[in-house]
């Protein structure tokens, strides 16, 4: 079991979809929302995801296919 912290960003109609709930239902991961700021058409959530590493990767890859932007919580680390 490992814990991964990520930032999910939602834009537009995606804000209304229960993506995090669905992720916890369909994958063997436990999600914990640590911070969030959600407006009508834009929002971000800092999420802790617990589970086996491969399962976490699968869950996050699935969230991305739903249109969620997934970033490390520290912002971009690749610099010019």
């Amino acid at each position, binding site marked *: 079991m490992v814990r*991964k*912290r990520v930032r999910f*960003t939602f*834009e537009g109609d995606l804000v209304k979809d229960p993506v995090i709930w669905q992720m916890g239902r369909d994958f063997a991961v436990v999600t914990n929302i*640590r*911070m969030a*700021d959600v*407006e009508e058409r*834009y929002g971000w959530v*800092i999420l802790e995801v617990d589970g086996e590493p491969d399962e976490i990767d699968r869950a996050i890859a699935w969230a991305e296919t739903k249109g969620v*932007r*997934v*970033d*490390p*919580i*520290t*912002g*971009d*680390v*690749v*610099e*010019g």
Partner: protein
Amino acid sequence: MSYMTALHCRECGREYEPGPLHVCEFCFGPLEVTYDYDGMRGKVTRKRIESGPPTMWRYIDLLPIAGDDPIEMGTGFTPLLRAENLGRELGLDELYLKNDCVNPTWSFKDRVVGVAATRARELGFTTLACASTGNLANSVSAHAAKAGMDAIVFIPSDLEQSKILGSAIYAPTLVAVNGSYDDVNRLCSELAGRYPWAFVNINVRPYYAEGSKTLGYEVAEQLGWQAPDHCVVPMASGSLYTKIWKGLTELHRLGLIDEPHTRMSGAQAEGCSPIATAWMGGTMNIRPQRPNTIAKSLAIGNPADGYYALKTMQETNGAAAAVSDDEVVEGMKLLARTEGIFAETAGGVTIAALKRLVQSGVIRRGERTVVFITGAGLKTPDAVMGRLAASLDIEATVESFEAAKREVDARVSAAPATA
């Protein structure tokens, strides 16, 4: 003498030992170095600084290292040049350029990496790491070489050969990651938690970021211990921008300069402008972008310090400008033509933003303005290749030369005069 006492969270204030940590365990806020400013007062004086080396390490007392043995590569104390030609062209009475192209690896990154590498060595690390598409990798590789440390540098596999060269020459371990930019980003965030390496802008970021303060110190010292009226700074993560302001406020706190009323303005390229876009939209909520600009050294779509940059902009009555790629190229050419400085695309962004801010009346004619030129032009030759005047191609005869010259003279006298 070191005055660093701890790290603290910028959001909740919780304190931490000054180790290899960068985010608060409780609220995920970024960590920042705590100093004993009271202890500095009266000890860190103008005289003490002025008698130091002609490098960034003359400000060692204000930097987050414990010992007195920095990795000295001759970084910093770069020229502050009066830019009369460019000032005249833009309509500014007192314009200065801080020319940070002349650092050991030709960008300001040597300042941040100098501090990160020195602190990493103090903390017992033997390997320096980073994820980079250019400047950062160059500087990390060079510092590791100088300090006898190992370097491991992660790059996207589609990076141009010319960019790889600037790191490869120092013989780091280069890891070309087959994947998107986001893949490289995520991979390196994870590796930082897994391997005993100092990722300069991840696990030792609080120290790293402090290196940029030296640009603020230098400008004030070079202006005769005075803060400028206006600064124009390129922004990627927004760290450099916020730290120049921090440097000025610290000097005031120590009584070394009068209270600064400097207006801090930031420059981004339109194709990657999350901070400028938030500023112009009047929101503190930064929306990550997918970068698409020739100014690759500024192409950070999800800037770690964006929020703090916006706060500084608000606090200092500054502004932000986002400029097109065409303006970037024109900015590079304008700087070279008027002041003889060949800067990389980040410099083009900054000059173009300066021009915009003057034209829109944000920067006023009489403001003593300092523009930060943070990287050298030979790093990004492709940006201007094909956009410069071609050579005169002639035979090795006087006639051939004079025929070509007549043609040029005719063209010049037919062209409209420019200032």
